[in-house]
């Protein structure tokens, strides 16, 4: 398995863990004790704004740790260059992620249109962002593994 493929797997697992732990943290610290907070837009705004820097920071830290472990175990440097194939794969996977997120966005607006509670819309938005991110990672992995 090449470094890029390992990096993608690490990214996927990291994003899964971050969202999982963050959701649990939010649930047990805020929602479990006060379910009415779900209807508070300020709460959702804070949730989104805190999740973004946390996930970026965690991804950076985990990638640094991965690079160090990879260097120790395989004695191979993590490639720093991004060539034309990497860029093409990145673009293709971003396109997939955008399509999924747009679908999720429409679904979230649909939930409002049919009269569901606003928190359903926020959960659909978070989930569609997560699914888009995961699918993009899986697509990237497949592109690297099987070619295109």
């Amino acid at each position, binding site marked *: 398995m*090449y*470094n*890029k493929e390992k990096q993608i797997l690490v990214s996927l697992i990291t994003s899964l863990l971050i969202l999982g732990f963050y959701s649990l943290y939010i649930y047990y610290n805020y929602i479990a004790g006060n379910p009415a907070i779900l209807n508070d837009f300020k709460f959702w705004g804070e949730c989104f704004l805190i999740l973004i820097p946390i996930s970026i920071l965690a991804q950076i830290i985990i990638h640094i740790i991965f690079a160090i472990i990879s260097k120790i175990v395989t004695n191979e440097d993590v*490639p720093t*260059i991004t*060539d*034309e*194939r*990497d860029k093409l794969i990145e673009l293709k996977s971003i396109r997939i992620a955008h399509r999924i997120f747009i679908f999720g966005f429409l679904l979230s607006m649909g939930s409002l249109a049919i009269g569901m509670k606003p928190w359903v819309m926020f959960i659909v938005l978070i989930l569609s962002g997560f699914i888009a991110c995961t699918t993009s990672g899986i697509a990237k992995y497949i592109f*690297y593994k*099987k*070619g*295109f």
Partner: protein
Amino acid sequence: MSKCLISNNIRKLRFHADEMTQQELADKTGVTRQTIVAIENGKYSPTLELAFRIALVFHSPLEEVFSYIVENK
């Protein structure tokens, strides 16, 4: 309908170039080894610029490195 295939002789040319490694070729052309592997295995068709860079490394004309085959279905 016709299917287009781009094949290459990179493996053979590397052998004739004193068994040049994939990493050496990658370094000389400014791409990752993984990209060279993908090109050699026919999993990725390089851009014209990269194709020329690879040909330049082997001091060969482009058509000696890459060939274009049209298969009629």
